[in-house]
């Protein structure tokens, strides 16, 4: 998994990358000058003769000291000017990031849990609200408003190709505007240490053309597909009669738990366990039986199921696209 922060795919990351490159080139030049000065000094060295060396220190030499003082003053002045330029550049970048605006057509609430992201597409019409987890889709080329909340501890959202870090603070919603200028799949990561599985707290951002996005959103708003074959029907019964339904929600069924990722369209997602494993039937089965082995400390208990119950459950969940 790559997090190429300098390959900006949106205006937020582009501003940050520009600032980064300015700092990089200026610091590179300063570094080379300092190293060059150091090498010159080493090369000149002290006079080999010890008496001559001590005479330089002992005998006052006014013109020489004036020269040294002048060089130091110039260096300090140049350093101060460079630092002020850096300050101005970062203030300008900060302003540019804060004023990324425009009319947002999409507003998403992201709530950090240990250790996954709850995702809610808000809408003035409550029936159009949509809840998902660990994956968001956004339309290319238009700004998206993210409202960031936390359920438990401080998290931080960072999708390096799209924007800078923004903290999710309990009890204090933060707002972040993001925009993707080219289609693609971008990976995000919790960037504030939040406990044992901090490293396995990833968010997938899929940027796609507006029509594809609209189709995706309409599909996600639908209740879950009813199982058609007998095996999947049995799987649904397993889901509803076992601990699954106690924490997870599947719209259109009686399972309405709100404390764990919404599974209404789980099969449409790219990853499971907030990026811990890819979304394949085998990984899903392993996750259900012993998620504590894959992601120790997460809130999902290990579930004991018989082989055919598990197969039925996987068939059912695999059909929830």
């Amino acid at each position, binding site marked *: 998994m790559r997090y190429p922060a300098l390959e900006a795919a949106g205006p937020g990351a582009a501003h940050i990358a520009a600032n980064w490159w300015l700092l990089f080139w200026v610091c590179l030049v300063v570094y080379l000058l300092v190293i060059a000065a150091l090498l010159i000094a080493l090369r000149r060295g002290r006079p080999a003769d010890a008496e001559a060396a001590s005479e330089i220190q002992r005998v006052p030499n006014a013109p020489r000291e004036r020269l040294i003082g002048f060089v130091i003053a110039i260096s300090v002045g140049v350093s101060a000017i460079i630092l002020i330029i850096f300050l101005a550049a970062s203030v300008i970048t900060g302003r540019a990031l804060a004023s990324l605006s425009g009319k947002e057509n999409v507003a998403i609430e992201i709530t950090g849990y240990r250790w996954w992201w709850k995702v809610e597409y808000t809408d003035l019409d409550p029936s159009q609200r949509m809840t998902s987890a660990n994956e968001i889709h956004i339309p290319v080329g238009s700004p998206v408003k993210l409202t960031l909340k936390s359920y438990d501890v401080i998290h931080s959202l960072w999708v390096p190709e799209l924007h800078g870090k923004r903290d999710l603070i309990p009890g204090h919603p933060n707002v972040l505007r993001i925009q993707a200028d080219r289609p693609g799949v971008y990976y995000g990561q919790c960037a504030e240490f939040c406990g044992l599985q901090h490293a396995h707290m990833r968010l997938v951002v899929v940027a796609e053309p507006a029509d594809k996005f609209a189709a995706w959103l309409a599909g996600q708003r639908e209740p879950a597909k009813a199982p058609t074959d007998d095996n999947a029907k049995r799987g649904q019964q397993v889901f509803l*009669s*076992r601990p699954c339904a106690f924490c997870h929600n599947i719209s259109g069924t009686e399972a309405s738990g709100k404390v764990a990722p919404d599974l209404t369209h789980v099969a449409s997602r790219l990853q499971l366990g907030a990026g811990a494993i890819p979304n394949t039937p085998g990984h899903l089965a392993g996750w259900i039986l012993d998620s504590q082995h894959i992601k120790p400390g997460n*809130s999902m208990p*290990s579930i004991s199921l018989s082989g055919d119950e598990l197969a039925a459950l996987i068939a059912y969940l695999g059909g929830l696209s």
Partner: protein
Amino acid sequence: MSDLVNAVASSELRPGPSASAEKQLTTNLSYARKGIYEENGWAVSEGKRLYSWFNCVGCHAHGGGGMGPALMDDQWLYGSAPEQIFATIVQGRPNGMPAFGGKIPEQQLWQLVAYVRSLSGQLSKDVSTTRSDHMSIMPSEQRLEEQNPKPVAPSARPQ
């Protein structure tokens, strides 16, 4: 696990201490469970999380009771021993307590049992939770008064 389920399943549904034939088994079990869950601060805090996630709060509030009986007092209609509380959660009880058997994995059941017992001060203070993740609405479990549990006379039971 299966021994335990059998013991729980065959225990009489009437309130009060379990029949003497089962007493030995449940006593042994309770020693085992106590070590794993009731002396483990993490297990108790997990129990606290599940207590609100599984909506025990909805009826029992944060121990003070509401629609359901209080859990922080000394009155126990169906027994206060860990395995009795376990049985109460698994089987459900008359007048509204649902049966959670099969819905909650065994490990989480015992975590809940440990937390429920901490509400009446039955666990040692260093195990009980000391603070809430959210806004505090009661003294911490650690500061709750230790109760001396006693069964309630049949006439006092809610009908």
